[in-house]
């Protein structure tokens, strides 16, 4: 479904991503592990068209994404829920969600149905629908961010550190919901530092260090891998 071939990303003279090749297949939940500054967000932004790869190819369903504008990529079904949420803080929760449906704005009936599905995933947002998104708790804001991304009807949903800054109990709930989104049919690429919890819901995982992919494997292999355990799980 998603295929990266030898992708490089540079910020000025600094090479943040170096020769990245990876695939995500339809229906999978793939985790991208990496410490701070490894390059996870840079990779997501390159896929989303927010920064331009200086070399290599990004393909989605056999269509080249690099060179396309961010809005064309969202319309194409690749949607990112970014680190730091990037909500519209003074708009209501409902407006935030509906802006998620921006690229499908002509299909009102479809959006309404989609909104109901999203509210089923996050029932608490129904009570908060009219409040400014910026006034919600961190966990609730993360739900709005994921909900907004779901309103874009992604076929590939990229989640960039959705557990960042959340209480352990909320993190657990967040991962359960991500698993649920995946089992309902959305392919998920999840960037995380919370390796153990992420691997528990993953089909496969990649490990990124200093802008390079250094390891790849299925859930079992990764959970059992000594290096991964030491570096990311601390056990």
């Amino acid at each position: 479904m998603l295929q990266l071939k030898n992708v490089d990303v540079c910020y000025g003279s600094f090479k943040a991503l170096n020769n990245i090749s990876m695939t995500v297949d339809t229906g999978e939940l793939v985790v991208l592990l990496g410490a701070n500054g490894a390059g996870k967000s840079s990779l997501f932004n390159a896929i989303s068209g927010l920064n331009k790869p200086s070399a290599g190819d990004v393909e989605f369903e056999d269509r080249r994404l690099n060179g396309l504008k961010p809005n064309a990529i969202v319309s194409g079904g690749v949607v990112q829920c970014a680190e730091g949420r990037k909500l519209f803080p003074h708009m209501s929760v409902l407006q935030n969600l509906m802006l998620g449906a921006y690229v499908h704005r002509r299909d009102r009936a479809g959006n309404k149905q989609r909104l109901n599905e999203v509210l089923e995933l996050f029932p608490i947002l129904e009570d908060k629908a009219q409040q400014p998104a910026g006034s919600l708790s961190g966990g609730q804001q993360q739900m709005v961010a994921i909900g907004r991304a779901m309103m874009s009807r992604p076929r590939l949903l990229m989640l960039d550190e959705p557990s960042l800054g959340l209480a352990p109990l909320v993190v657990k709930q967040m991962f359960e919901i991500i698993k649920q989104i995946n089992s309902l049919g959305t392919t998920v690429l999840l960037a995380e530092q919370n390796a153990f919890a992420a691997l528990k819901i993953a089909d496969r995982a990649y490990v990124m260090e200093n802008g390079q992919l250094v390891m790849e494997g299925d859930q079992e292999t990764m959970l059992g891998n000594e290096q991964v355990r030491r570096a990311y799980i601390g056990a």
Partner: protein
Amino acid sequence: MNLFFQQIINGLTLGSIYGLVALGLTLVYGILHIPNFAHGALYMVGAFMSYFLMMDLGVHYWVAMAGSAAIVAILAVLCERLVFHPLRNSPPIHDKIAAIGILLFLEALVQMFWGADFRRLSSPFTGILNFDGLIIPEQRLLIIVGAFVLVAALQLFLRKTMIGATIIAMAQSRDGAFLVGIDANRVAMMTFAISGVLAAIAATLYAPINLVYPAMGHLVIMKAFVIIILGGMGSIPGAIAGGMIIGFAEAFGGFYISTAYKDIIAFGLLVVILSVRPQGLFAKGAH
């Protein structure tokens, strides 16, 4: 009493015009972070376009206003496409230099066609309304009502339409707007078009009680900048409130202190208010 009422009318008139000009300026700044020094030139071109349409083509005042709004909207979009858009990744100083370039270019262009003379735009609203001794010239009433209607229409547009929502979204989170697939170019063009419409209508409303000449935008744009700094850069309510504050201060200051100093009052107020509230009256993003 009557003189006092007269000053209120004057304050509302000035405040309406300043508010409309500042509104366009603050929208462009809030969404695109461009301090558009050329906004005053758009205002000036708006007055000349109405003058041209009325005097040379003989159309009615309202038609001239609509035509001028359309022309200046297109001109503003052209500025965005041809000048600001290509500079979007350059250091911010380039925007400012380019804006001054547009300002000088438009002034020279208008002067080439019409000369530097002062002209008068006539309006069909020359009467004076007398409410039991309280006197309001029709044109001033039109300015106040017109500004009110425009601000209300703009609010409706921004809050009730999808295009309006994309503009507000872009102002609140640029990254968020990209993530949901909002096309930045469309928002930029729409914002410039709105600012052009507001400037042209403000100029056409105000010109009949003032004069039309190529340098007419200078003082207006300086005051509009004072207003959006006062009101909080990018804030819509700030632009309206700031416009009214400056309008009233000038009307009353001009009357009770001296008309000779009335143009200094805006800048004096700026110093006073910023020393108390450095972030402006309304923080940015308070849409």
